[in-house]
């Protein structure tokens, strides 16, 4: 129920920020060259910047609730339609990054917990604090320098090579190229995905490994683990069924809460790899002074984060019956 005030607060914040632009968005976009005063007034009227502030806010609120996020000052397309065409690229990248981080981070954390105090444990913890401190915009460029420029293994940027045309059916390149039956396109898509996935997945990977390790250490000290061992169950079964299942509860929360940071990281990753997603779009909107896009895109990302947090809350009560009421 706290969603309604949070939502109003989020829209109020995104509204306020745009109105802190010196002058108004039209004036800022026009720049110092200026245009005819009549044209300026007409544009202001068209975008509603000539109304009193409170009225603009009420109008904005009504529009947002109706799913109308305004029109790009540059392309004249609706912000929503631009977002829809670009968002699948971001989801695809974020999904791969989370998958990469989960598939590698959780097993590493489990092994570190089982071998507590060994060189492997120390090495992994050192690596994970380093990974969590990583400036990913530098990390991505170093990867390009080594693997794309140095070895020539992976492409430098984009989602798929220009040599292939893939029918944009779902917007998810992996799905589209699968159905296009074009093996070359699939290979190209995969090779374009590898580096961005690793770069965006690095910080989550480090966090998941650390989190899994400490959650496992906590669980491994519990009585029921000793009971399970005493019953003569195999080490593997105790680790996976008894320990890991319980240790995963806090880890799932961390995974859910990392989505916000991931979308922030996507801005940097997409900028480095010229990945045509939402983050790239937002940075471009800043360079073009396209304030409706900046405002709408930011708001949509915030709404996604609210949705994911809600989902995590619900998932948490499914996973952890103790907090169910």
């Amino acid at each position, binding site marked *: 129920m706290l969603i309604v005030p*949070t939502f109003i607060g989020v829209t109020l914040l995104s509204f306020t920020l745009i109105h802190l*632009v010196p002058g108004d968005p039209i004036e800022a976009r026009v720049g110092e060259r200026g245009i005819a005063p009549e044209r300026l007034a007409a544009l202001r009227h068209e975008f509603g910047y000539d109304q009193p502030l409170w009225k603009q806010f009420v109008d904005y609120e009504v529009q947002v609730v109706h799913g109308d996020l305004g029109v790009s000052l540059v392309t004249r397309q609706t912000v929503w339609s631009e977002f829809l065409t670009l968002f699948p690229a971001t989801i695809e990248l974020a999904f791969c990054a989370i998958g990469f981080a989960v598939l590698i981070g959780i097993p590493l954390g489990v092994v570190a917990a089982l071998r507590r105090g060994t060189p492997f444990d120390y090495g992994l913890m050192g690596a994970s604090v380093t990974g969590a*401190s990583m400036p990913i*915009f530098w990390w991505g460029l170093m990867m390009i320098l080594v693997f794309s420029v140095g070895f020539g293994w992976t492409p430098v940027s984009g989602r798929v090579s220009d040599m292939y045309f893939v029918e944009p059916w779902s917007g998810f390149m992996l799905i589209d190229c699968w159905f296009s039956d074009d093996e070359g396109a699939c290979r190209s898509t995969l090779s374009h995905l590898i580096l961005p996935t690793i770069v965006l997945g690095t910080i989550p990977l480090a966090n998941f490994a650390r989190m899994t390790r400490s959650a496992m250490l906590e669980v491994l000290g519990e009585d029921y683990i000793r009971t399970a061992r005493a019953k003569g169950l195999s080490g593997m079964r105790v680790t996976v069924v008894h320990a890991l299942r319980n240790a995963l509860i806090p880890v799932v929360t961390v995974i859910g809460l990392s989505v916000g*940071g991931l979308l922030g990281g996507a801005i*940097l990753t997409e900028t480095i790899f010229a990945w045509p997603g939402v983050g790239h779009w937002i940075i471009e909107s800043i360079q073009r002074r396209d304030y409706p896009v900046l405002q709408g895109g*930011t708001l949509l990302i915030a709404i996604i984060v609210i949705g994911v947090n809600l989902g995590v809350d619900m998932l948490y009560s499914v996973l952890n019956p103790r907090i169910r009421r």
Partner: protein
Amino acid sequence: MSATVAMPSRLTLFWRSFAENRGAVFGLGLMVVLIVVAALADVLALHTPIEQFRDNFLTPPVWAAEGDWHFPLGTDDVGRDMLSRLIYGARLSLMIGFSVVAVALIIGTTLGLTAAFAGGVVDVFIMRMVDVILVFPSLLLAIVVVAILGPGMFNAMLAVAVVTLPGYIRLSRASALVELNRDYVTATRAAGASTLRLMFDTVLPNCMAPLIVHATLGFSTAILDAAALGFLGLGAQPPTPEWGTMLAGALQYYQRAWWVLAFPGFAILMTVLAFNLFGDGLRDALDPKLKR
């Protein structure tokens, strides 16, 4: 000094428990190096950070074939000495980290204590605001704030301070709420202390431990986010030797000259790592409850 066996001082006890964590000691060492380098930048740097040597564009580091001892880590595209720029960059980064943390700590703690002491509508209002800020990915919000205020180092620092506020507000409010029920607070209140005195003189000192840890870790967030903004062209502007801005400047030719890319990023990584390791160690040493 007397010859009797005394209890070890609090500082000694703290150091013992801190020094158990080798990572933390390493972090502290790195921090000391950074602070010394930043303080002695004028002495250590061979050149000024913006001096352009027109005969030495993209000179590689000394150990490479065409290296030159005048430029130990090479030069960039307009012939500026990389090492000197990195050294002055350390000064900038520490300054950014310190200013951002100081602003966020002071404003955040004041707001958090106000929420805890005032309760009611004020509390709800402040905490709603925190929830709203937390919904935005911090880097995105910082980007938007800078995009609107205009690029520049000051605005970037302001933006990062704003997006890191929620942590300080929540922490100080939570610890203050715990302290408020303690007898010593009631006693001080009964003795007639003003609310301001209660807030900052009675309660705040007892809430400091988690805030200090959070502030130390906040240094790394601040430095990282400010560098990211610099990289996106929204932070410090060229020719300022800010590490993130240096990386942005290297984008056009880093494939020919790896050193213009490798060193500034490595400097960011090491700085952030130092504060993270130190902060983790500090948390373990200050809060024995967390240790296992």
